[in-house]
């Protein structure tokens, strides 16, 4: 320690150098123990072992190992990632950090080793389903326990040290290494998607699945070279250029971008196979839902946990109006109509239900509202399921035989996911337009004000009840789009499609993407529904289907703790969430205006604030 302080003075910059073994041992051991707990937990969930069958690089690496051993890598990185406070001296990155990463990794690995050893000695398979030989064999790389015990410690230590050593590399090298790693993993993981989009690419992969090692190296090298030659920089520069654009130049760029992406979206389904089309259709339906919820949660700040109710109402209304198989109790005169007619009625119905559910809850405190809407979501599902209304909605049997949506020129039906996707695309365009227009209108400003401070908004003449109801109704109508399309797509509809789970997943999409930001919502639905999958719909990584809910939960917690503004933040929203930091930054940059134009405030003392001029 003393050594560290002595060297400080000699350094020109404000960096402290500390010896390689001058470590904060207690912190390291603690972090290591947490890492160990995480690794053991992950192993016992059975996820890594379950994903082992998915090969990434043909004989060497499976998704299982990646899904477990990313943890020491990241923890190693973050151990060396010291937060430097303004005005404090930073510690100079050195071998010390690598040692720290290694130590933490080793402690974490020791946790796994302990697990391997314990599995052979104790049998507690009774409660813990994954406490078995195959987990043990997986953890010891199929090489026997003693090998496993040593290997786990060594591997985790190595990964931790490697993660930490990323800090030592020059920025450019670091980025190159990281992008090479990510590129290899991504190309391997998205095998089925890539082959589906471009069949010629299948030369990269071996017959049994997984990248061929040679090509894995090639992909890595290509990514490395691309980044080293400044490819990444150029992209970054283009992006920052775009972000600084204003006025007509930006409008022009925006138009070009929008036209390009619409073209891409029209063309992609034409060249891909059914699986990808199905995937895109699912992403689209959840995008519709998320856009609607975004208006309610992101713009108006109302946490609606029963959002699935409107999805259900949309689905059931369309089903009842189009299917010959609706319940027997509907009166004779009750019409059956083509899909587009039913769709219009559905919109009306969703709006009414939105009003009906919205009115009683809208005056409640925000958090009560969340629970009550959740209750409403359940009530609606229970009613659709109940014997009481069985004659209308067929209870658990659901309504089947819903005809495809017929548009004369083409039909939208489940067996043709491409048509569903195009229909969804149209609706998504409408929803995006609606969100975009409303956000920049009188109503949008009122929503913002209500979100910021409801009672002040009220005092400034905003009828908060009406304004919030409006958000509720708009959200409901957008959700019914999705419901309507969903029933035409699936062709049948059951109460189990509308669990609370759906509400929560839509909420996760909105939050992970970035509340109040349309681009964020799109990114969120593509990443989550596209890759992990929806509540029942498989995603690109079908292997994850068993584990995706756990991942959704973890993601929600992590996002709220680390990045509540989402992947693609809305500028205003992130200001709200980081108000203190924002103010501090603004202050450091001298942006906050103090009472500059006036003299010193100390004069205040001269005039007693009380009865200065009067009664005395």
């Amino acid at each position: 320690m003393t050594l560290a302080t002595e060297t400080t003075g000699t350094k020109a910059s404000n960096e402290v150098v500390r010896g390689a073994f001058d470590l904060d041992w207690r912190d390291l051991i603690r972090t290591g123990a947490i890492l160990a707990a995480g690794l053991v937990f992950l192993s016992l969930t059975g996820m890594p072992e379950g994903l082992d069958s998915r090969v990434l690089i043909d004989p060497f690496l499976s998704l299982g190992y990646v899904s477990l051993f990313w943890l020491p890598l990241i923890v190693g990185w973050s151990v060396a990632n010291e937060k430097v406070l303004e005005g404090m001296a930073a510690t100079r990155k050195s071998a010390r950090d690598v040692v720290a990463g290694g130590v933490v990794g080793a402690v974490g690995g020791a946790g796994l080793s302990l697990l391997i050893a314990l599995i052979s000695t104790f049998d507690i398979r009774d409660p813990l389903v994954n406490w078995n030989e195959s987990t043990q064999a997986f953890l010891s790389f199929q090489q026997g326990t003693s090998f496993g015990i040593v290997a786990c410690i060594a591997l985790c230590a190595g990964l931790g040290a490697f993660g930490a050593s990323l800090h030592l590399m020059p920025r450019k090298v670091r980025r190159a290494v990281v992008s090479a790693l990510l590129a290899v993993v991504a190309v391997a993981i998205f095998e089925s998607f890539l082959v589906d989009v471009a069949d010629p690419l299948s030369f990269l992969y071996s017959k049994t699945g997984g990248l061929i090692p040679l090509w894995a190296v090639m992909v890595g090298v290509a990514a490395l070279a691309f980044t080293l030659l400044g490819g990444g920089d150029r992209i970054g520069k283009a992006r920052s250029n775009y972000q600084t654009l204003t006025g007509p130049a930006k409008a022009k760029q925006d138009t070009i971008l929008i036209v390009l992406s619409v073209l891409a979206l029209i063309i992609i389904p034409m060249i891909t196979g059914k699986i990808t089309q199905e995937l895109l259709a699912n992403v689209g339906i959840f995008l519709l839902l998320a856009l609607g919820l975004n208006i309610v949660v992101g713009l108006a700040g109302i946490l609606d946990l029963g959002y699935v109710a409107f999805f259900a109402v949309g689905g059931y209304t369309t089903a009842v109006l189009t299917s010959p198989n609706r319940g027997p109790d509907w009166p004779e005169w009750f019409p059956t109509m083509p899909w587009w007619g039913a769709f219009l009625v559905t919109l009306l119905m969703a709006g009414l239900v939105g009003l009906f559910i919205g009115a009683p809850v809208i005056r409640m405190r925000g958090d009560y509202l969340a629970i009550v809407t959740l209750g409403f979501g359940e009530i609606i599902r229970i009613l659709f399921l109940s014997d009481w209304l069985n004659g209308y909605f067929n209870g658990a049997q659901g309504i089947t035989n819903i005809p495809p949506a017929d548009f004369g020129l083409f039909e939208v039906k489940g067996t043709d996911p491409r048509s569903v996707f195009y229909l969804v695309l149209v609706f998504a365009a409408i929803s995006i337009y609606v969100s975009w227009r409303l956000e920049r209108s009188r109503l949008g400003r009122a929503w913002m004000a209500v979100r910021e401070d409801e009672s002040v908004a009220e005092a400034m003449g905003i009828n908060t009840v009406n304004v919030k109801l409006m958000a509720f109704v708009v959200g409901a109508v957008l959700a019914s789009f999705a419901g309507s399309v969903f029933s035409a797509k699936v062709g049948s509809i059951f109460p189990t499609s509308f669990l609370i789970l759906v509400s929560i997943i839509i909420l996760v999409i909105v939050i992970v993407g970035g509340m109040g930001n349309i681009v964020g919502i799109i990114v969120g639905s593509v990443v989550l529904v596209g890759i992990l999958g929806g509540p029942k719909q498989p995603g690109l990584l079908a292997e994850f289907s068993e584990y995706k809910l756990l991942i959704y939960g973890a993601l929600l917690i992590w996002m709220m703790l680390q990045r509540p503004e989402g992947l693609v933040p809305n500028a205003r929203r992130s200001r709200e969430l980081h108000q203190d930091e924002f103010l501090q930054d603004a202050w450091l940059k001298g942006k906050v205006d103090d009472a500059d134009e006036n003299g010193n405030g100390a004069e205040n003392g001269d005039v007693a604030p009380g009865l200065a001029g009067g009664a005395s």
Partner: protein
Amino acid sequence: MSHLLEIDSLSVTFGGLHALKDLDFHVDEGEIVGVIGPNGAGKTTFFNMISGMVTPTSGDIRFEGESLVGFDPNQVTQRGIARTFQNVRLFANMTILENVMVSQHCRTKQGIWGSLLNTSGFRKEEQEIREHAEKVLGFFGSRLVGFRLEQPASVLSYANRRRLEIARAMATSPKLILLDEPVAGMNPKESVELTELIGKLRSEWGFTIVLIEHDMNVVRDVSDRVVCLDHGETLAQGSFEEVSNDPAVIEAYLGRPLEKKA
């Protein structure tokens, strides 16, 4: 009976505490009335009551002959009473322009369809809202306009936040403005300037004003009439000189003179 605002034996209790007791009060059109009183006298509660944020236990509030009791705050604002807050409550993450634009909500009416179809009515109204906002902000000189328009309200200095609060109240196009300690936290120079502006609010914009203030210089300079509250009751009413020389008022502020203790 032609008072703009008339308050009849108004009372409110919080639990056992009588925040206001049998208060009678009135404001005529074009007046500036100062409300003073020691801390906790019930002045802010009085404003909360008028603006509909607190419901009185008994009594009546009439504005232009219409009873306001039972109205929601937005309905009160709609009828022409705007207010500022003692503990400045801006929409901190909205820009300065938006803060003022959003306050014109109750004076404008374009709904969902207008904005979705981008009708000419919608565009015209947006234009008007913006122009009105800039006009209101321009009232405070160059402090809140120009590059400031697009800055979030949270970066403003304390004094400017108070000014923005007043601008926001002005933007609701009220007849009566309630100012809760508008110069609190300002230095003398700033408060002199604001005092002048308060005068202009009446002379140029035609607002009637009720203002709560602890700074007696301000109260003396602008008020036509002063009311002193203590423990929720009116202690004295009249011109500034009358009220400030009233023994009851002096007692309320300074405590009971020593000799009476015996």
